[in-house]
């Protein structure tokens, strides 16, 4: 009898997705050479926090970290869900951790309620606003609709953070196959301009600038201003904008920008709007920051064909596709559509079912 072999990777890049895929596919993964030549070799604090989070979200997982921290072995257990509370270090935003939970939570044993403390938005990870208004809304394409919630109880801007979100996700037996190729036309744009520990006027200035950029294309724009005060506003000042464009078929395009120290609110608004336009031009039914999610859920579908259209493949997605093949042995059919400059992705689902969910 041949044993199931461990999947091995090198390097610190794409650590998160590999761990997540390992847990979903139940295949052990070994990641070696994590920053071996770095001044400070091994895992970073946020990666260790991620490992802790995954350990909390699962039952029976075994993480083996080498002496130097340059290699990790994960023997995955089962996803449990339930109540999780985590203090996330300020080196990465909460979005970094939420992305992992978004992929795992629907396949747990019980409904997940995760409370995460840390930075709610920065310029490396998805902000919690985008996750709330786009990522979680994208769930509905796969039959996960009721009970998904992300509540931003406190906002925390970098560098000190101090934000808090509560993420709730129901469990499902299996997801639905996706057949989403019509990207439609953008019919409305929504957004959230947030500001913490700065003048409430800042948010209005962001909105003004973003509207100025977008109003030419569509009048149906509504950007909420979300100003947090007092204890709910975290420890540092900050502001930013998260935009979501929705098409007639329900495709969501997102763009977001968080202010760096010294940035003018107008610049943030305008740049975010331009980024959104860029994203819209890319086309597809899922924007570049949600390509991975669509592909993952397609793979986790039943043994039917799933099909979707995405814009330009990002490097992240390309690696994601390779990793999916490594873990699930599923190859996507990638068919470019030169007319619209988009790509049709087709795959057969792996027949994944949430074996942890109880029968009644």
């Amino acid at each position: 009898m041949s044993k199931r072999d461990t999947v091995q990777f090198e390097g610190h890049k794409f650590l998160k997705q590999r761990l997540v895929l390992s847990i979903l596919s139940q295949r052990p993964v070994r990641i070696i050479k994590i920053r071996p030549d770095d001044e400070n070799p091994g895992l970073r604090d946020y990666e260790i926090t991620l490992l802790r989070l995954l350990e909390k979200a699962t039952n029976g997982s075994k993480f083996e970290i080498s002496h130097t921290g340059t290699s990790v072995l994960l023997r995955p257990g089962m996803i449990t869900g339930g109540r999780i509370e985590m203090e996330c270090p300020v080196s990465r935003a909460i979005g970094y951790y939420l992305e992992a939970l978004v992929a795992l939570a629907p396949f747990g044993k019980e409904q997940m309620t995760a409370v995460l403390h840390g930075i709610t938005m920065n310029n490396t990870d998805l902000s919690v606003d985008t996750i709330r208004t786009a990522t979680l809304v994208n769930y509905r394409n796969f039959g996960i609709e009721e009970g998904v919630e992300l509540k931003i109880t406190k906002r925390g801007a970098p560098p000190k953070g101090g934000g808090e979100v509560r993420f709730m996700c129901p469990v499902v037996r299996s997801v639905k196959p996706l057949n989403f190729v019509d990207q439609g036309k953008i019919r409305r744009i929504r957004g959230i301009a947030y500001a913490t520990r700065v003048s409430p006027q800042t948010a209005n200035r962001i909105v003004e600038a973003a509207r100025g950029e977008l109003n030419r294309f569509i009048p149906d724009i509504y950007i909420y201003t979300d100003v947090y005060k007092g204890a709910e506003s975290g420890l540092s000042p900050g502001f930013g904008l998260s935009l979501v464009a929705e098409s007639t078929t329900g495709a969501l395009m997102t763009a977001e920008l968080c202010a760096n120290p010294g940035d003018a609110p107008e610049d943030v608004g305008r740049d975010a709007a331009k980024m959104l336009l860029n994203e819209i031009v890319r086309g597809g039914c899922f924007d570049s920051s949600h390509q991975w999610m669509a592909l993952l859920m397609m793979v986790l579908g039943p043994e039917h064909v799933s099909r979707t259209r995405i814009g330009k493949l990002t490097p992240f997605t390309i690696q994601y596709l390779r990793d999916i093949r490594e873990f699930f042995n599923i190859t996507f059919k990638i068919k470019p559509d030169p007319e619209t400059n988009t790509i049709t992705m087709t795959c057969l689902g792996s027949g994944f079912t949430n074996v942890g969910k109880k029968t009644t």
Partner: protein
Amino acid sequence: MDGKQTHKAHRVHKAGASAKKKLVEKKKKNAEKNNPKAFAIQSAQKAERMARRKAELDEKKYHVPMADRTPTIPPPLVVAVVGPPQCGKTTLIKSLVRRYTKHTISEIRGPVTVVSGKKQRLTFIECPNDINAMTDVAKIADLVLLTIDASYGFEMETFEFLNLLQTHGMPKVMGVLTHLDDFKDNKKLKLVKKNFKHRFWTEVYDGAKLFFLSGVENGRYLDREIMNLSRFVSVVKLRPLAWRSSHPYMLADRVQDLTDPELLEMNPKANRTVALYGYLRGTHMKGRDRVHIPGAGDYQLDQTELLADPCPIPDKERKRLDERHKLMYAPMSEVNGVMYDKDAVYIDVRKGKHEVNAEEGEGEKMLSELQKANAVSERLAAQQFNLFSRAKPVTADEIVVGGSSTRTRRPAVFDGNGISGDEEDEEQDDDDDDDSADSGDSDGDSDDSDGGSEDDDVGSESNTANNNGSSAVDYRAQRIAARAMEDSDSDNDSDDDDLLQRVDNISSSDEDLDDSEADNAEDEIVERLAPIHLGAKRVNLMDVVYGDASAATKGSSKSKAKTSAFGGADADDVDEDNVKSLAFTDDIDDRQLYRYFITGADRSDGEDDEEEEDGDEKEAEAEETMGDFKDLEAEAECEEEDGSKSGSESGGESDPDDADGSDDDGKEPNRFGLSDDKMKKLKSKFDKLYDSDEDGADKKDFYQQQKDELQGYVDNTRQAMEELADINYRWSGEYVKIVIEDMPYEFIDRFDPATPVVVGGIPNEEGLSLISIRIKRHRWYPRILKAGDPIVISVGWRRFQTIPTYFMNDRIKNRMLKYTPEHMHCSAVVYGPFVQPGTGFCAYFLKRAHSFGIAATGSVLENTQSVDIVKKVKLTGFPDKIHKNTAYVNKMFNSSLEVAKFEGASIKTVSGIRGQVKKASGDSGTFRATFEDRIKMSDIVFLRAFHTIPIKKFYNPITSLLSVTAMRSIADIRRAKNLAVPNKADSHYKPITREVKRFNPLRIPKSLQAELPFKSKPKVVKTSTNAPSRAVVMSKHDKRVATLLGQINLLSKDKGKKMREKAQKQKEEYTKRRMAEEAEADARRRKKRKTFFRIEGQNQRGGSRD
């Protein structure tokens, strides 16, 4: 006669029996119509009950909709013929095969596939009488023919098999009664048939088909009866079964050992490379899938290859099945001595006895010599050749390439850059395997043996012919190599060297073409040639993403993928693994952007779109000026959509403006100055979008909707099959060959074609976990199941031995059970690979101990990593010292640490005084405890607690196709080793003898009594006496009355006495008289009897004398 022919009109009978009958029938038919009152609802309750019953019956018909994945050309139905031995299974298959193909097979080994109709094929398998084989057959059979020996009756195997079927998804079952010719009495036969039928019905379902085969003729059942059976087989309707429609599986109808014979010669017990052939069923398979072979374990498929269907359905639509299309495929049974292979037909020409010892000719000798596996290597080893000019000749044995023994055939011929990479080595090995395997299979096929021929040209051609993977490119490589050889300065005179080099070149596939070449000149040629087969194509995105597999999978930074219009920068260019990128360009053409918005869409429906692109600046400007005007409408429409959509969406944010926007349209149709036509068009569009929903929803109920949705998925997948063709998917219904490496040698060694070999796909079902199951002892199994006994569980594709821990939930905790309940479900936890919750399972013991084998059945509830199962534990201790309500208890714990763990736990004495553990005193385990009352030194203190028991993680797949190693139960071990059951004196039940305690009466000293309050004082309770409670002084009148009453009483008493005496006397007299009468009557009777018997005796004597 001309004109129309006239017939006599039919006269309807107006009188007589038939007329009456018709009248009655007619009345019955129209009764409801003619007499509606009689059929009106008499009682509302009754009507309601009837309606409910009907609704329930209707509801029963519904099943959870399941996707029917049957492909357009379905794989042959698996018809399993099951039954105990000697009840005619083989005869039945032979008869059916004969019926379908007009062929008689002498021996049935393995599955037999026949074309049974224009669109149907059948695969017959005979199920051996073995619980393991029966389990496997139950998992794959589409139709089961249960043969029952009527002359014997039902046998347990039949019921065992039915139980296996029920737990693994019930396929269609038909019964076949055989040996009916043993019944000579027709009446009895009828009765037997009836009894069998009803018993069969209770087991399967009412009305299940049961066939009666009444006799055997020419070794087959009667043609008429078999034809009847075959007709029912051909129209059988199948329902999709949950497990099978979500897993790929294959019933191997041919098994072949592809192991390198050379390897076997060295180590006959080496792991084998095995090819399994069969029709793929269920879902699809992809290359390098993980599969489970019940009875052999989990394996990774090395390759999955599509083969031509050996038993195809006629492709042309015909009215009836042509004689030449009535094919049969039974590769293991050797039909007419012919065996089919992928590229050859083997004909078994049996040698006569006289030929065996005949002298072999020269050619034959050579062939048989070639068949020897080590011919090539031995010869090569013997040969010498020069590596360098003027160097000492070396033999192949002296050259070590990778240290591996199998690589001796690949010496590093070229100096310099001739050493090829590892991948190439592997490929070389593979090729070698194939070649030698082929030569091993095709006995005497001279073309196959590559190294055997000395002639270069012949050898090379045979090589290229053999090498399936090598295409024209290889050919080219060969020529290049040849030319390179001419140029190179190494003087290679030896033929063998040349040959070896060629082997090298051929084996190198097109990818590593450039690596394996030797010289500069060569490199040039390669460079020139490379674009022809590599780069000439357009950049394929699939290549970009998956192209350089080795680099991509290892995550190292050597991906050669090129960026294209559709792919961004390569994955390795990113610094961190964040999804978000902040890069954006400022210079997007606005006009291009407009296309992505509904505002732009409305303006240009299709054609306009292109126009817009082609058009010059002016037009664009004009349109932009128009844009302001048109935007209004677009806005309205978008808002209108918004409003209705946001109502249906729960997640979307609602726009405060929406409500206003949507209403406006209907009231003022011409607000935008649109023509009526346009308005109508818009209105119909709106109606179609929103109004028609209600009608459509009414037409399709929920059930139908779900079914349609599932069917939609299936149709989509079917359509996408072509699209996915270049990804190596093998679809259901295809005939495939799968190759598995590392198969233990027992698989081939102990291979028995009669035992079915099933290959089942296991998507995401490999991780081991605790499986929580609901289990019930089978009601026919004579024993209850004991905790700790290893049991075999058959669930999914797998059969494995495991140790269940039985428990029952009492709504608070899971209490362990030592034995399963007798007639109830209980829960259990076993350790094994993931199983989809809801899957049924069946449990049995490996060693059959009882007439009925199935020990338990049930279903999977949950997969989990930890289960808390507790059992009760009672700790006892004894008081050491007692101070008022406090006591020091010892002997309950052994250390203060243990006590610390139980601080605050509640304890109790035998007499029922409750208390609490307080704190350890000293280190010996003594602790202080407080009680609600003072306890006695003779009391025993209890601590009741629950102890979580560890679950035994034992998982042992039953490798019945290899060799079975199984855990024995303790009882078995004791039996085998002749050990006695440990006998604890303490555990014996003895009659409890309790002394009756005598307590002395309570004595309270007088002095104390005096001090007691009245309440507590012992009271002197007087016993009642005859003395009147109080003195009565009667008046004169009372006295007289009393005297009178006394006198009357006395008189009546006396009277009664007299009467009783008289009655007594009378009774005595009567009895006396009766007795006398009786005696008299008795005497009379005696006398009479005496006389009668005397006369009777005389008569008899007289009669006898006569």
